[in-house]
């Protein structure tokens, strides 16, 4: 928001350069983000935060400058020469919605001469980028930028029965606004009406029919206060943003209405002539209590700030920005909050405007003192709360474990968006899906409309991105939340996508296959002491016959799945897995099993069996045999080809025998091994194709 330094100096003489003032304002929370010299003036670009509508005008900024520099603030002049006729005799104001409009001040000036503005006024407005329209409109605009109070001027002749009625719009009521738009209104919208119809959008924009034109002679000045929520609602419904509603939405100063009306009136009389009717029609909702007060204890403020504050200085600062300080005891004051800080400092914003507010939070007062003191000179300390907190969380520990494990396994971590398009939703099985997915009401694009129920669509896209750029292989993983459906808790999962050959012939690498991927998944599970089982399954998005559901422990419900992706366009076959990670819990620490001090004996076994016999069945059979001193067994080679009957396969396994207390003799090993061999041969041995 732009402000003129020269204009600010109209109310306070800082006796400092613009840049020094800019620095002071920035240090006090009114960030001057730009300074531009324009025609002998310096224009400040100030980032006024939403809680400080009182500083969205020149007097407000001047007040801050006055408090920061200790220089005197001079309020603008409102001398008016009035005629005998009273405003109340010619105009009537009625607040039908006194919540939406708790105060309305009207003044009337008759016989004005609408025309161009004097040069000083044109220049003032031009300095902050405002265009001159005519003297009446310009004065209204000037006062908005001077006092922060939005003003509207009506052509009194065009108000039916010179009546102002503040009410909600009627169903289907229409109004052509100043910008020429013919708008249909809604009963949520607050309007200014005359005896017949709506003539302005309250606090937002005037109507075209009642606006002041060159032919206007008698004008009615509106200086009112509107409820921020009501204005925000209306402006939102209509999609309008003006300087007026910007201020009302953030909370204007309820007590400035009369002053602003007088200020406009005095300027109109001075610039456009005319006769000022006596007094104003000032209707206010008498139940409103704008009083806000609290207590400032300097000792507590110093503790809160971590800085030794000086009482005299603190009082000077607060009084400088309009707070009323009444000493209660040593270092303790009763503090009255100025009306322009009402909305910012009311302790309970949810309480209706009419109800009295409790005492102001002391932190609000601390904030004022501390920001005017500046944060720079506050010394740095560490909280003295005694003892550490709980440290890492189980979730964080688990995620880090999964991440590091997969990185060691050669997988690169990806991060993809948590939403995808409607098509992606049905591509893969997902985990724990229930009912319909969560849909975004205002997605940023059609590509991001559904909250993910699988990490694979995003991760596969990342894999494709790499392959398209010439990568011969990919290995990616991602950990993220799944959103299984309405009323379902979010689920954390990890997904892997891999494929292609790593490295060159020199590197002796080979093409990645499903069992490389499976090995990564199994080793991850093993890291968390988890044993997985794999059950063949027909999975959406996977090549038939390659998919499997992943089962953990004794449970029969899948915790994940893996397989080869059905993905015809890919340069290399891709394999993928998705697995929930909540199973990966930190298990109880287990003592290690000490290895035998005696040598182990390794024996191979080759079994010819039907191709249809699953490895899991062989493994289960060996486990079931509970062979004495067998410490390990595994797959050595699978062979199909010369010497192996059609429909059969040769599986060579290794067996490692080792006793804890002695060296096994060859006879002992042979005896144990023969028993296994017979057991396997009896159950699975090739008996010719049947």
């Amino acid at each position, binding site marked *: 928001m732009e402000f003129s330094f020269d204009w600010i100096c109209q109310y306070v003489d800082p006796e400092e350069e613009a840049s020094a003032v800019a620095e002071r304002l920035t*240090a*006090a*929370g009114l960030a001057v983000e730009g300074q531009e010299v324009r025609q002998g003036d310096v224009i400040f670009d100030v980032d006024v935060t*939403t809680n400080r509508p009182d500083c969205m005008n020149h007097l407000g900024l001047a007040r801050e400058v006055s408090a920061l520099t200790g220089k005197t603030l001079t309020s603008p002049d409102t001398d008016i020469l009035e005629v005998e006729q009273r405003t109340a005799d010619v105009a009537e104001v009625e607040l039908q919605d006194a919540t939406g409009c708790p105060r309305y001040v009207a003044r009337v000036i008759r016989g004005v001469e609408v025309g161009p503005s004097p040069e000083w006024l044109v220049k003032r407005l031009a300095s902050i980028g405002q265009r001159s329209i005519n003297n009446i409109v310009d004065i209204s605009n000037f006062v908005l930028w001077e006092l922060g109070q939005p003003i509207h001027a009506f052509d009194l002749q065009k108000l039916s029965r010179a009546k102002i009625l503040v009410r909600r719009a009627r169903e289907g009521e229409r109004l052509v606004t100043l910008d020429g738009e013919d708008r249909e209104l809604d009963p949520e919208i607050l309007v200014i009406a005359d005896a017949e119809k709506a003539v302005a959008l309250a606090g937002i924009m005037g109507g075209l029919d009642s606006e002041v034109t060159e032919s206007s002679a008698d004008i009615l000045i509106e200086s009112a206060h509107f409820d*921020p929520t009501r204005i*925000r609602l209306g402006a939102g419904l209509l999609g309008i943003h003006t300087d007026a509603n910007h201020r009302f939405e*953030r909370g204007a100063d309820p007590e400035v209405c009369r002053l602003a009306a007088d200020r406009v009136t005095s300027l109109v009389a001075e610039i456009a002539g005319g006769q000022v009717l006596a007094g104003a029609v000032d209707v206010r909702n008498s139940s409103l209590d704008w009083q806000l007060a609290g207590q400032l204890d300097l000792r507590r403020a110093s*503790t*809160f*700030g*971590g800085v030794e504050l000086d009482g005299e200085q603190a009082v000077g600062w607060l009084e400088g920005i309009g707070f009323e300080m009444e000493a209660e005891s040593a270092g303790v004051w009763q503090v009255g909050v100025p009306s322009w800080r009402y909305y910012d400092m009311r*302790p*309970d914003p949810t309480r209706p405007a009419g109800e009295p507010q409790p005492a102001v*939070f*002391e*932190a*609000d007062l601390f*904030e004022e003192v501390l*920001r005017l003191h500046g*944060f*720079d000179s*506050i010394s*740095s300390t*560490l*909280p*003295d*709360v005694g*003892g*550490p907190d709980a*440290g*890492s*969380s189980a979730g*964080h520990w688990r995620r880090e474990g999964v991440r*590091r494990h997969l*990185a060691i396994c*050669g*997988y*690169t971590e*990806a*991060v*993809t*968006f*948590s939403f995808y398009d409607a098509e992606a939703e049905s591509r893969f099985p997902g985990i724990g899906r229930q009912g319909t997915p*969560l*849909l*975004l*009401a*205002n*997605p*940023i694009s059609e590509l991001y409309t559904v*909250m993910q129920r699988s990490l694979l669509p995003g991760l596969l896209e990342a894999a494709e991105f*790499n392959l398209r750029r010439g990568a011969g292989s990919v290995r*990616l993983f991602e950990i993220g*939340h799944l959103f299984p459906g*309405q009323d379902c808790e*979010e689920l954390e999962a990890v997904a892997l996508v891999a494929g292609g050959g*790593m*490295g060159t012939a*020199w590197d002796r*690498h080979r093409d990645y296959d499903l069992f490389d991927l499976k090995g990564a998944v199994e080793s991850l599970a093993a890291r968390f002491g988890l044993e997985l089982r794999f059950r063949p399954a027909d999975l959406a998005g996977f090549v038939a016959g390659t998919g499997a559901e992943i089962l953990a422990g004794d449970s029969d419900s899948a915790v994940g799945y893996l397989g080869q992706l059905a993905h015809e366009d890919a340069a290399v076959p891709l394999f993928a897995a998705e697995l929930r990670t909540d199973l990966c819990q930190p298990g109880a620490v287990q003592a290690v099993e000490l290895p035998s001090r005696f040598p182990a004996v390794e024996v191979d076994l080759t079994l010819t069996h039907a191709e249809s016999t699953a490895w899991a069945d062989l493994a289960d059979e060996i486990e079931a045999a509970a062979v004495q001193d067998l410490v390990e067994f595994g797959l050595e080679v699978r062979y199909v080809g010369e010497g192996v009957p059609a429909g059969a396969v040769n599986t060579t396994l290794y067996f490692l025998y080792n006793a804890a207390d002695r060296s096994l003799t060859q006879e002992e090993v042979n005896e144990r091994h023969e028993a296994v061999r017979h057991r396997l041969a009896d159950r699975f041995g090739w008996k010719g194709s049947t």
Partner: protein
Amino acid sequence: MSADELTRHQEAFAAEAAEVRDRADWEALRVRWIGRKQGIVRSLLAQLKDVPKEEKRDFGQGVNRLKGTVEARLAELDEELSRTERSLAQEAAAVDVTLPGRHPHLGTLHPVNLVTQHIVDIFIGLGYSVAEGPEVEDDFHNFEALNFPQDHPARDTQDTLFLEDGRLLRTHTSPVQIRTMLKRQPPIRVICPGRVYRHDNDLRHSPMFHQVEGLAVGEGISLGDLKGTLEAFIHRLFSPDTGVRLRPSYFPFTEPSAEVDITCPFCRGDGCQTCSGTGWMEILGAGMVDPRVLENCNIDPSIYSGFAFGLGIDRVAMIRYGIPNIRMLFDNDERLLHQVRI
């Protein structure tokens, strides 16, 4: 032995030694001259008993000299042969040790998560714990409890992504602070990392990004404590000579609130394009927890105070790794990701 005889033997030995080409020649020479059974030296010594008494002494000395000469020369030849043998063996086993080693294929962690881990480590060191929460939130946790009243313009700054069921994607990780405070009474020190979402999409904004927020609540926690904590944090995250500046600002959930600047990590404060010539870079938002927020979480603001801060992790990752566009973080280009050292 006469001097002539000795000289003859020595000359004969020298001539034969000159013919030695390999280990077999050397062995034959050794056996012929100093072999235990029929070596020439041995047989000369055997003749000693027949030598007249008065010549015995000379003869003995002569043989011993010969023996000395033979042994010395044999040792020399042995050393020469060994040298040759070693160099031959070396030649046979030689490899080009400058050939590339075969690297195990290691993965890497995402830059955003590396930075997150770094930040979490720093705060665990300062005595904090990690807290987490859901990414789909309700209005109460994301806004209302944080002192964003309904229909308040402060909500405009949040560009919220809403779900069709009325809930929303959290716009910051602050709801985790609320959930933590609703669960426990002070003292509280937590750090809350996670994904957050906004309705925003351009070179500098991504609809999904990462934040870490910290919260400390206890008796007598001050603005100075916030300042000290942020300095300790920033000095560890960037470097100990990084300048830290707090500027008063506004957030609904803290008061006073501050924008926190650090000296620009690119120009070290001299002013450059990245920091628009100011020498400073805005890096996080912070403040003392608003008493309304404490009350909303059933914590008595007249007893307890606290501070909170929030930081965009993606931005730190971009600064740290020199990544100019936030979207590049989510392209997941392995050529880029593999350069990030764990």
